[in-house]
């Protein structure tokens, strides 16, 4: 399937230890351009750790990462960003005391006056673009000028998603549990957004525990267990029961 060029992202044999805990024990995964891959697995399987390795916030101990066939060194979030990898973290990385627009643009502000650290951001533009993004997500935040600490879980999630889709150059969008902790209506909005991003050709990795959501948005499903990607299957060729059995380890055969 679509084997025209090298995959957009290839991770191979990624290992990561936290003291005695071997969170990743040789995880490998390959994603084609324009594809949406769901990453599933039990609690502690290593999904977030794999995401953080690719995002550079917790660089891997060993293993290789290739983007479009070229080996890249991702040692920091800055490296990943320069390569066009955008991440929505599970543990909502919002600065609680800043407002919505400040969070959406944090670290990537449009500038009104360029002066290094002492640059003056273009807040007018930030407010307008943030409002447009919230509109697109159909998320209503009555007072976007207040600190995001005051927002509901869904609204906070919307801000976090708004941030990830706002970056200029994103080759790969990684979302760690984008629908966790959301209300029914908010889940629907987020899923609709993910589908429209997929239709626009955005390459995505989506981590989720909700197989219903996984089946709605993914092209393929990668199942992690004990720090490894145990199986990768085409979403259209399997049932939820198959996935559940792969997650708990009932079936040992890895499908490519």
């Amino acid at each position, binding site marked *: 399937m679509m084997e025209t060029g090298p995959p957009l992202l290839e991770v191979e044999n990624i290992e990561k230890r936290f003291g005695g805990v071997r969170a990743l024990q040789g995880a490998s995964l390959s994603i084609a351009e324009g594809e949406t891959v769901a990453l599933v697995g039990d609690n502690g399987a290593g999904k977030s750790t794999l995401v953080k390795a690719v995002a550079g916030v917790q660089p891997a101990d060993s293993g290789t990462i290739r983007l479009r066939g070229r080996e890249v060194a991702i040692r920091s979030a800055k490296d990943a960003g320069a390569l066009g990898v955008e991440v929505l973290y599970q543990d909502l990385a919002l600065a609680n005391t800043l407002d919505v627009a400040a969070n959406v643009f944090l670290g990537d502000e449009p500038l009104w006056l360029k002066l290094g650290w002492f*640059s003056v951001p273009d807040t007018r533009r930030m407010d307008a673009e943030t409002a447009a993004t919230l509109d697109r997500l159909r998320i209503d935040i009555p*007072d976007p000028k207040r600190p995001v600490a005051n927002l509901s879980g869904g609204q906070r999630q919307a801000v976090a998603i708004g941030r990830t889709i706002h970056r200029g150059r994103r080759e790969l969008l990684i979302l760690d549990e984008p629908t966790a902790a959301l209300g029914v209506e908010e889940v629907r909005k987020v899923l609709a957004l993910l589908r429209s991003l997929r239709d626009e050709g955005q390459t995505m990795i989506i981590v989720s525990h909700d197989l219903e959501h996984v089946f709605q948005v993914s092209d393929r499903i990668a199942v992690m267990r004990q720090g490894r990607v145990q199986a990768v299957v085409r979403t259209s060729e399997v049932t939820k029961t198959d996935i559940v059995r792969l997650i708990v380890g009932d079936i040992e055969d890895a499908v490519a």
Partner: protein
Amino acid sequence: MNGPAGGARNRFLGAGGTAERALALPFFNVAVAIVVLYAVFTAITGETFNTANNQITIMRAAAVFLILGVGQTFAMTTGGIDISTGSMIGVVGAIVGSGLELGWMDPIYAIPSAILVGAVLGAFNGFNITVLGVPPLLATLGTFVAYRGFTQYYMGVNLVTGLPDVVVAVGRASVLGLPVSVIVALAIAVLGWFVLNRTLYGRYITAIGSNPSAAEATRINVKAITASTYVIQGALAGVAALVLMGRLDSASAAMGEGVELHVIAAVVLGGTYLFGGRSTMIGTLLGVYLIGMLENGLIQTGAGFFVQRIILGLLIIAAVALQLQQRRSGPG
């Protein structure tokens, strides 16, 4: 529905009336305290407290605290603290003062070299905190002791005197009735306000204090920016040292002792969170004035130096306790 106009409208509708807004201002408490104390001191001392001359005296005494308060506000915004400010002043006084007195430093270089020496002292704090990972309180406690030790070692019981006119002018001259030191302090405060509220730097230090891992994840250079707040604090200690040297026309081993207490009290009383993520330069300005007024008023009502210290120490505890209280009851 969420256009900029809608947002602007909601800003006024969404958050209750003007009174509620005022109450939510971080420096509301300190503003009230100023009004109350002002009335109390005026009532007790009658003529002497409530005069233009006395207000100038308060401001002149408070200028050093305001200069340092700006840097302290930056450091605290990141969730840090710098208690070595007084000791940095001591070192700057010793090196620059003796350089001037012994003639190996041309007076032209007095101001830039004071700032530079201060910045280097601050950079050492920043290095220890961000590269070595020493908690700010302990890192600056270490230099609080070490820098003062150096000053005492270097100066002994000597007193540097006969400083050049530039330096004396910084401490003593007045322009249009306002002391130069007060003008310098206010200029630094205005610049500090701008940096905190209008630049990326202000946003980033707030983000760092609010959620360091969020700041890291958005590619803010957390370590460099955090360290820079201590460099700024050091440079400002250099400016403060010039003001003190100029005012006294001398430098001694004890110069700057105890200022850190005033500065920290002023910044926290002003409404800046000791835990980072929320700060106010206007609050710092008011906090500095409150502390200056309190000291001045206490002297005039006959309370001695030791009573002042007792009150200052308790005030810091009260201010932090109040912040903890607000943090528990309100979000953020």
